[in-house]
């Protein structure tokens, strides 16, 4: 898998405050979550990628183009959804998105055509002739996404896309982002401090804390627990099962929800085989057998407090 952006030894300062400190990261293709508490440097990283801030040291590339030297070419291929409410006053949705397309370099007729398409895709087809000022918060988030998409970017930078949305709006926005990244082939970098949103939209995450990189990788890897412990759920309660498991060499760590959590053997396959053997011995029926994993929240907290 290739990378969409590469950052090396980046330091960004606002006066005496260091927002990013000697930060290096490779942002892979696909849908990547940028996780971190408020003030971690997520928005600063996005603004650096867009060339909005001048780094005190270091640099990098976005889509193979050097930040600071080829900012226009970078922005030609990048769409940005800012965190705060933003629109161009006095325009209807279709005028606004078409204008954003023209600013992105599309000829007028193409910009208008794509504005209609993108608004339809973002679920604003019915409301496209309404002034943006009259939109609800959810619609404003969608139109921010539409203006970011209209010029056909290869990379979308989404800064808190579910900010201020009600549960239904949040659900729809998550689906939309996932569809854009997974069905339409657009690389997406989603910045958020809402872990469930990231977990549902992204395949990989980058964890920032105090301007430093704390963790990076596939979400499933980050959630994995050392030693391959396994969770077993039985169809019916069976008091013999734990004893049989001990007989076949498995250590019970404790109950886990409605099942049991067992320490893993050398390889997950060995643990599974032993668990099936224990079930046969005790006459229990296994309903679920899975590698135990921690929540993304636990993984995040561990990375942040490391």
């Amino acid at each position, binding site marked *: 898998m290739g990378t969409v952006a590469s950052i090396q030894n980046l330091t960004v300062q606002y006066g005496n405050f260091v927002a990013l400190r000697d930060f290096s990261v490779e942002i892979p293709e696909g849908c990547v979550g940028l996780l971190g508490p408020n003030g971690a440097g997520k928005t600063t990283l996005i*603004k650096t990628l*867009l060339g*909005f801030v001048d780094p005190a040291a270091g640099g990098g590339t976005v889509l193979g183009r050097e930040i600071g030297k080829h900012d*226009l*070419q970078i*922005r*030609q291929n*990048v*769409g*940005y959804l*800012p*965190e*705060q*409410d*933003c*629109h*161009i*006053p*006095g325009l209807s949705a279709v005028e606004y998105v078409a*204008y*954003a397309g*023209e*600013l*992105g*370099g*599309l*000829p007028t007729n*193409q910009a208008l*055509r*794509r504005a*209609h*398409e*993108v608004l*339809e*895709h973002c679920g604003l*087809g019915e409301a496209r002739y309404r002034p943006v000022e009259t939109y609800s918060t959810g619609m404003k988030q969608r139109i921010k996404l539409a*203006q*970011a*998409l209209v*010029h*056909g970017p*290869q990379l979308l930078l989404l800064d808190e896309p579910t900010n201020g949305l009600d549960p239904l709006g949040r659900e729809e926005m998550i689906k939309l982002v996932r569809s*854009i990244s997974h069905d*339409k*082939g*657009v690389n997406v970098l989603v910045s958020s401090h809402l872990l469930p949103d990231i977990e549902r939209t992204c395949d990989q995450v980058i964890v920032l804390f105090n301007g430093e990189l704390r963790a990076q990788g596939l979400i499933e890897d980050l959630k994995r627990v050392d030693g391959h412990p396994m969770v077993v759920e039985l169809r019916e309660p069976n008091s013999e099962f734990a004893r049989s498991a001990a007989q076949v060499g498995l250590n019970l760590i404790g109950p886990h929800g409605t099942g049991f959590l067992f320490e893993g053997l050398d390889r997950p396959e060995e643990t599974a085989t032993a668990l099936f053997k224990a079930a046969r011995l005790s006459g229990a029926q296994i309903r679920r057998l899975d590698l135990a994993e921690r929540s993304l929240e636990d993984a995040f907290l561990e990375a942040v407090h490391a």
Partner: protein
Amino acid sequence: MPEPIADLSYRGYSGEHLSEKRRWLVVAKMAWRNAFKKRAFWVFSVFACWYYLVMIAFFYVIEQVGIARGSDVVTQLFGSISWKDQFLTGFTYSQIVWLSLGLLVGAGSIANDNGTNALLVYLSKPVRKVDYLLGKWAGLFLPLLVGMAVPTLFFYLYGVVNFREYGFVSQDSYLLVKVLAMILGAACFQASLILGVSSLFNQGRMAGAAYAACFFLLTFFSNLMWIAFLVAEGGRRGHRNGPLSEIASRLYYLSIDGLQIGWAKVVLGTDGSPPFGMPSRTPQIPAPPLLLALIPILLVSAGGMFLAWRRVRAVEVVK
């Protein structure tokens, strides 16, 4: 079966892109569209003709009366009129209209973008800060120029058709060029200044109020200087106070409209005369020297653009 107006699924774009050098034009075109579709813009532009319309009506009545009485008063009066002074007077008397036009199309040009975080939209696209500012400037300059050109060219054309025999063209062969230079300079100056003021605020109406307050305060000062000049010139009695007159006549131009009037006087090459070419002994404030007119205009314009340059940044306004 009718076809849908567009493919409803999102696709990437691999078509042609316009040159990056023309992005300012996209910004300017949107500003022009917004300005020209405002009905008030055209109302103000027509209203700016008021001096010329009154003058035309006045001349018509004089002409008709003269013809009826068979006297040569008309020939004497029209022959003594300095036509470029009429353009200067029309331009001077319409300053309040130029102010209104400027506020209408320009006060919110950057302020409203600041207030709605629109700068993030502009600057996250392949648009440089200079493209944005140039586009906004041109988007303000052209409507102001059109607003000024409507009355001025209207009277010029009317004069060419009706007052040619009274020296309208022969008095100054370069009158049209001078008149165009006058309104070009004024539109440049106003566009730069309003853009600078607009960039300081997050709401168009606040920017407009601040600009209007500056305009009226400075105009009040200019009027005080005009009175001081008249007093120093001894009114109609002729007891002249040279130094005071000199100082007042220079300070008179230190206002938004004063700078433009000074520029107009320099370009037209006249000190001005009473309205409608009526004979009067009231002294006129002399035109400033070229450099004294040009340097403050350039400084204020550059200052406005510098302010805008410093203020236009891709930062978010958190509400």
